[in-house]
């Protein structure tokens, strides 16, 4: 960042002001810190600082057996826990070449898609808060709470579930699971419509987000963006379709793709995605049959020597897990490809040149979770 020299051509005798946004700023969604250089209301420079939530998760994984690592993965992206667990167990299963029972796969898909809705609901609420509207966040938290109540009934925990296992799931779902999820879906659809109607097409939100933080498709690919942020830039890529895992090839769903690559498209693709997730869960419920929930395995997973990369579509994007195994019960090395971290990369390009208020909206539209960025 170059602070401009006072008196230089085109600038009056002024200095840029350095403003610290974060790690204790309401708009940084956790402990992200932006060092902003501002000229009046314009942002002319930005230095992002991360690492306030660094817990050394990847190193810790090397000292845990695989079933313990699941608990660490719960704490990466702490608003889409099931999706994280899925990324890990998919990788281990791929390495061990395990065939997961169908019922377990369907339950995993149901929980992951519900988790996607919960995560996007949180996004919509906080995005509205960033844009200055306080009401939508309370609506979305209400709906998210219903999902978490279901999670608690299923796994015993609202957020840190520790429910997926290498080869299946921890225990079978309750008898009333299908009925409960079905009822929940109806309520979610109502809630999504309500927030969508209240927020999405309001003139003020459109004015604040249309054309703000535009990133082109090729740029987004170059920066390694994924998930809704990538799709908003008119790049149709979704791991669930391009490299199906679980049983995603057995369900029909749409994938919203934006054309502008601005903050509003990043927002609205997520809103539409929630509706598609509801459709996926409906189909999974219809296809869910009784059966085993765990593959026949040794008690402690011991993958063969080798390496594996598996990835899944998280609410925030392409969540990849790379495992190097030396044949032991603990990974030799485990690397996570965190979508939040990669989506954060173009932040400076997006923010510099815009207004302070835009910086907040752009950061909000990228929807980062610091637990995953810092790991």
């Amino acid at each position: 960042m170059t602070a401009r020299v006072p008196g230089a051509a085109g600038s009056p005798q002024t200095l840029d002001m350095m403003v610290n946004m974060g790690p204790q700023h309401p708009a940084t969604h956790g402990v992200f810190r932006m060092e902003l250089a501002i000229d009046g209301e314009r942002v002319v420079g930005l230095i992002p600082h991360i690492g306030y939530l660094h817990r050394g998760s990847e190193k810790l994984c090397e000292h845990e057996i695989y079933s313990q690592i699941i608990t660490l993965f719960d704490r990466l992206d702490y608003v889409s826990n099931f999706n994280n667990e899925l990324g890990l167990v998919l990788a281990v299963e791929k390495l061990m070449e395990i065939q997961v029972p169908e019922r377990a796969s369907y339950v995993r898909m149901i929980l992951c898609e519900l988790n996607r809705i919960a995560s996007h609901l949180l996004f919509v609420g906080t995005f509205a808060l960033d844009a200055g509207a306080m009401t939508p966040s309370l609506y979305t938290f209400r709906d998210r709470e219903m999902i978490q109540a279901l999670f608690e009934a299923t796994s015993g925990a609202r957020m840190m579930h520790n429910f997926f296992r290498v080869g299946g799931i921890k225990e079978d779902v309750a008898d009333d699971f299908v009925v409960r999820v079905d009822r929940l879906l109806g309520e979610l659809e109502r809630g999504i419509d309500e927030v969508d109607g209240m927020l999405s097409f309001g003139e003020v939100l459109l004015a604040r987000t249309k054309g703000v933080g535009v990133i082109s498709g090729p740029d987004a690919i170059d920066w390694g963006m994924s998930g809704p942020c990538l799709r908003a830039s008119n790049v149709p890529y979704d791991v669930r379709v391009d490299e199906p895992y679980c049983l995603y090839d057995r369900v029909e769903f749409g994938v919203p793709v934006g054309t502008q690559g601005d903050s509003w498209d990043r927002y609205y693709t997520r809103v539409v995605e929630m509706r598609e997730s509801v459709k996926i869960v409906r189909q999974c419920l219809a296809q869910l049959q009784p059966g085993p929930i765990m593959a026949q395995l040794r008690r402690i997973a011991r993958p063969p020597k080798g390496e594996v990369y598996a990835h899944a579509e998280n609410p925030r994007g392409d969540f990849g897990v790379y495992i190097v195994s030396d044949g032991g019960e603990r990974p030799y090395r485990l690397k996570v490809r965190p979508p939040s971290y990669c989506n954060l990369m173009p932040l400076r390009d997006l923010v510099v040149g815009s207004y302070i208020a835009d910086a907040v909206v752009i950061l909000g539209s990228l929807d980062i979770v610091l637990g995953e960025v810092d790991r």
Partner: protein
Amino acid sequence: MVTWSEVVLTALGLGALFAALMTVVLSLTWLERKLLARIQRRAGPSVVGPHGLLQPVADAIKLLTKEDVRPADAPRFLFWFAPVMVVLPSYMLWVIIPFGDGLLVRAMELGLIYLIALSVLEVVGLLLAGWGSASKYSLLGGFRAAAQLVSYEIPIIIVIIAVAVFVQSLDLRDVVGGHATTIAGRTMSYAGQGGVPLALVMPLGLVVLFIAGLAELGRTPFDIHHAESEVVGGPFVEYSGAHWAVFYLAEYMNTFFIATLTVLLFFGGWSWPSPASVLGDSAPPLAVNALGAAWLMAKVYAVAGVIFWFRGTYPRLRIDQLMAFGWQVLIPLSFANLILVATVLYYGWPTWTLPLISVPLLAVVARVAFRRYADPRKMKTVRMFTRSTRADGETVLAPQAGES
């Protein structure tokens, strides 16, 4: 000559006004929290007192007993003086606000000029607070407040002038109650708002005044100078305890003031619907006055309710959009309103021509402003893709049938 009895009476009046304003502010904070809670499907304050009615009192006690912290680098005088500078003009405004015929502390024939002059002063206090807090967020907030308040003062002033031109008086009592005046041998009589409130005569003025008033208050969608998600608390971010409470007090007094001004100028104050005709001609003046004041307060609370409703509904504008809206939309509209009123008066056209011209004008402007951002053609930017199989057998995403 000022007599002692006048001094004592004025002092008593000021004291009573202060007590009344405190009560109003406490009730407004309660009302806002309850209304917002209802909008957001919450209960709101419900623990202290019945329906949480005593919550504002508890808050006030808590704030007044809290420690006052001054940042180490903040200049002592500026930091402590700023809240006073904000609250004093907001309080002084009320001296000339009539709550009924003759129910006011000090009658002033140039009352509207006094209002205009004092309401601009508040920005000095906000700027002082922003500068004197020795905090960058405060500074940003202070300058935002200065830019915003100075810009939005202009449409308010022009609308007030338009009303004054229409009424041919700068006295708020005349605006509500009507009067007759003779200028250059031409007698003008204005019947007051007992029959028809000015809102129906001058809808353009009402809309401009209300929107500019929201901006003047720093209320959603114009709350950029204390935007929590951007400048955290703006000029107030470093304040705590009693001094913060004073800012808060001023803010609610101003909300109440804008609501009252709207009602007095456009919704007939205490005289529409006429209390005298409701009670009959033989009613005692005290009863008529009391009913008028009750009318006024009911309408003011209704307008305040609308202001709170906005807060529960809208996101916040960005500063450039806010300034553009002020200078490109509201100020031209307010001048158009003034010119319209003057023209109609000069040529002696009937009053109903005013709304006849201004309502279509307002509709056109609203349509253009709406289309600028919420054009349905521009909004459809998200398309639906579905899974399809490519010629080489790969599954890829392709636009759904029917999506272009």
